[in-house]
């Protein structure tokens, strides 16, 4: 097994770990954290794709690397927005929960602004 495969497998594992944390952890902040772990696993898969395609004197294919840079910045922006939502929710309700998982109860959602 070469180094690229090793990091690729750990990327796969990180996706699994992050996904588990994302689904099972009820606290929004922890969900956001797990999302970042999941994301970094995905980025590692890009890294492996790039490393494997090393050619022309480059250590890796630069195209996936550029994509990861774009995606890291997008993930940061997403994290910032999610945390802003959590903080606002805290301000409004003193709590930071996502509420019940069944949005079926009609009274919690009202109509127009």
């Amino acid at each position, binding site marked *: 097994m070469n*180094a690229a*495969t*090793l*990091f*690729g*497998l*750990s990327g*796969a594992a*990180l996706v*699994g*770990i*992050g*996904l*588990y*944390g994302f*689904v*099972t*952890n*009820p606290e929004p*902040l*922890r969900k956001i*954290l797990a999302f*970042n*772990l999941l994301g*970094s696993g995905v*980025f*590692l898969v890009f*890294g*492996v794709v*790039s490393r*494997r*395609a*090393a050619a*022309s*004197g*480059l*250590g*890796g*294919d*630069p*195209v996936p*690397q*550029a994509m990861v*840079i774009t995606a*890291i*910045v*997008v993930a*940061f*922006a997403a994290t*910032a*927005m999610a*945390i802003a*939502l*959590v*903080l606002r929710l805290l*301000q409004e*309700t*003193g709590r*930071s*929960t996502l509420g019940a998982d069944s949005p079926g109860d009609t009274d919690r959602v009202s109509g127009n602004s």
Partner: protein
Amino acid sequence: MTIFAVFDIGLVVLILGIAVSTIAARDAFAAVIGFVVYGLLLSIAWVRLAAVDVALTEAAIGGGMTGMLMLGAVARLRFAGGNDISISLPVRFATAVLCALVAAGLAIAVLSPPDAIPTLAPMVMENLAQSGLGNPVAGVLFVYRALDTLLEKVVLILALLGVWSLAPDSVWGGIPGLRVYARRSSTLTFLAQLLPPVGIVVAIYMCWVGAKEPGGAFQGGTVLAAMWLLVMIAGLKRVPSIGQPWLRPLLVVGPVIFLAIGLAGMVLANAFLAYPPGYAKPLIVAVEVALTLSIGVALGLLAAGPLEQAQQQ
């Protein structure tokens, strides 16, 4: 087994261990710190994957900025109402099986590479000379796939607008609720006076070196953002209100110049986002300089969070 392999295995085990402890930690604070450490370790992993550009981005954004964002949030959530929802064991188990399935699928995909691994690296290098750039990643970001890079800047602006738009109406136009260090601390002040000049030099260096070696506007911009935040946290500079006349022009100057050069390409070169022959490098450097500023301000304000105080008259 080579010494590289031993190093890599150690690194991977450490990364996975920290990741699991981050998910499993009882305390949110411990989880966040685990995440910061994790980000720093990942940048070493990226070095090992021969992706120094990404390593720089990960060190700055993944470890530094995201960590700081989360630490700010965790401190404020500390006394928030707890969470009474608990997930039952069977559901946890089912989720674990599902996640293992996803991970296994990915592992299979990783373990079965195509016989001849296709790559765009030769094509990237072949055409790179035309642009005068030396860094192939910068070439992809600003020459071949410039459209993605441009749109991603719009994503940053939108995310910032999204964060701002959460504010109650009463504080619109006001000041982001960045928590500053409450005590006037001489040591922190000292750091906030000494580090930013160094940081600015590093940012300029990153931006300048990005054309030929790893680095560029993203990394430079992130360093700028961090230095700005440091100065604000230490109380040396006030957090600006979003109504400041200089703020929004600075935020859009990068994407606007990028867009303008792109459009000019329709007339002066062959296509949208094409550069006139011979002018590619100076134009790209100009775009990168403007983007460094815009990214710096945007990331700083994103980390500063939603508006919380009305503007003082």
